[in-house]
């Protein structure tokens, strides 16, 4: 909010929608290309180009197409999902500090997934259980924050923070009770880890569908950002829209968490940076979040794979190391 609070216009606001999106899309492609090329064994740009055209030697093909590409696409999809979910929560609560991680959605999804893992179940059950956890968290936060009065942003945010803390305790309890041989997998998953992600297509498809669905809602979201009464006076059906935002954000979070575990701060930092650059028109910010969030997580995952290669770091550690100082700075600035 720094530049904005000083009264300056966002740097690129009002330049149309397509130029910023094209630049972000190019950056995304470049990040994907980089993530395919570097790693414990690097692939030269020529070799990479050959593989992408369907040529090249068998080893490079296996490395790029079967190992790196699915993982990079998963990272892109998860980053996009988290950033869009964060942007939506921020509009809903009219608070730049909201994101699925802070509001307990990630926590709920994690508890669901860990419970399934603890029970020795796998695959689809973990996914379904994480979805159930995220939606349970949604209902808890929205139901409790509503109470007998009406939703206020600060009440929603506080309820979300407390529910998130509760999920944190449940997670610790589950870890304490789980047998030692399951612990490393669970821990890694809690910190966010893309090496377990199987196919990138479900999260990518969800990201695309949600972005298309949100396009016609963009202007209504802009009006919602002015507060529910103002939005209602300008013809927005506020309550259904609020539920839509919250449920969509939950679905996005649940999908992201089941793909890559619990990754924090992408949903917080990406929308914020983009608002500083592009202004606050949701019709631009939401697709831009999908692209920039994806790009950021692809880069973070590439770092996680290569920093101490051949060992791997959980990508959540990288995003947290970037996100914590940013979050603290924003809190400090926003007073």
């Amino acid at each position, binding site marked *: *909010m720094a530049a*904005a*609070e000083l*009264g*300056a*216009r*966002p740097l690129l*606001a009002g330049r149309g929608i397509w130029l910023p999106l094209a630049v972000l899309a190019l950056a995304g492609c470049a990040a994907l290309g980089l993530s395919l090329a570097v790693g414990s064994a690097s692939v030269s740009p020529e070799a990479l180009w050959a593989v992408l055209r369907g040529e090249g030697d068998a080893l490079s093909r296996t490395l790029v197409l079967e190992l790196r590409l699915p993982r990079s696409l998963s990272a892109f999809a998860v980053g996009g999902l988290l950033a869009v979910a964060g942007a939506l929560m*921020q*509009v809903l609560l*009219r608070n*730049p500090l909201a994101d699925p991680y802070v509001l307990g959605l990630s926590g709920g999804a994690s508890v669901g997934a860990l419970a399934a893992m603890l029970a020795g179940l796998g695959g689809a059950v973990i996914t379904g259980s994480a979805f159930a956890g995220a939606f349970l968290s949604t209902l808890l936060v929205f139901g409790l924050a509503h109470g007998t009065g009406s939703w206020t942003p600060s009440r929603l945010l506080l309820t979300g923070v407390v529910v998130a803390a509760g999920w944190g305790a449940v997670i610790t309890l589950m870890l304490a009770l789980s047998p030692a041989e399951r612990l490393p997998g669970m821990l890694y998953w809690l910190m966010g880890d893309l090496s377990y992600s199987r196919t990138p297509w479900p999260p990518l498809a969800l990201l695309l569908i949600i972005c298309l669905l949100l*396009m*016609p*809602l963009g*202007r*209504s979201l*802009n*009006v919602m*950002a*002015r*507060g529910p*009464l*103002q939005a*209602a*006076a*300008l*013809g*927005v*059906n506020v309550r259904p829209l609020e539920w839509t935002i919250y449920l969509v954000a939950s679905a996005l979070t649940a999908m992201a968490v089941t793909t890559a575990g619990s990754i924090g701060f992408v949903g917080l930092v990406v929308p914020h940076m983009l*608002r500083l650059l592009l*202004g*606050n*028109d949701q*019709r631009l910010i939401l697709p831009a979040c999908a692209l920039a969030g994806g790009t950021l997580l692809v880069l973070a995952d590439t770092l996680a794979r290569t920093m101490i290669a051949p060992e791997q770091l959980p990508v959540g550690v990288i995003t947290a190391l970037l996100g914590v100082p940013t979050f603290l700075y924003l809190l400090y600035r926003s007073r």
Partner: protein
Amino acid sequence: MNRLGLGDLVIDVPGRDDGRALSLGVEPGQVWGVLGPNGVGKTTLLHTLAGLRAPRAGQVLLDGQALATLGRRQVARALGLVFQDRQDGFPATVRETALIGRHPWLSAWQMEGGEDLRLAETALARLDVDHLAERLVSTLSGGERQRLAIATVLTQTPQIWLADEPTNHLDLHHQTAVMALLAEQAAEGRAVMMCLHDLNLAARWCDHLLLLYPDGEACWGPRDAMLETSALERLYGQRLATAEVDGAPVFVPVR
């Protein structure tokens, strides 16, 4: 839709008896002032009339149709509301803020076009804030924000204006300018209803008055019939001295 009807309307003020139900019509061309002490339900009344909260009893009618049966968008095309206070969400410029007044007129896929931009620019110029168009709303003064809020409703082009203390924070010149704008809207065939604390502005600019008493009682009618000093003294629990200045009655509180 340019006629606002109140059919046996009882507004929902928590912890108060029903009082007298309001049955009146705000006709095109009329300027109604709502007077009453703090906490009497003036804002609640305007929000109820705009459909933002449900009445305890009775109904609000837009051209004879119950407001509750109309879609939000349809209501927003007919009826604009100037809020008493507003929240800053995310940073937005003055021009962007005025442009959201076009929201009820645009379809989901439509971007704001040249005509919308022209309406917004005209409204900003009319309220004397066009030179601030590029500024962020958070950097404006209270009076400038108030004028921007009115410019946003002007951009919305409603047939019925509801204004909650439209002269709040305004200097003397802009108070008069805003009241003249609202009177002009009425003269062009729109209906206006506003809450006011300034008896003298009400006496000068409104042609009908609605007086809301703390116990839920209410009375309404043409201005001259309502400006009884004794009734106004009872309304505010305040003794008043009256004089006539520039052809209009002036009320001054006395100690």
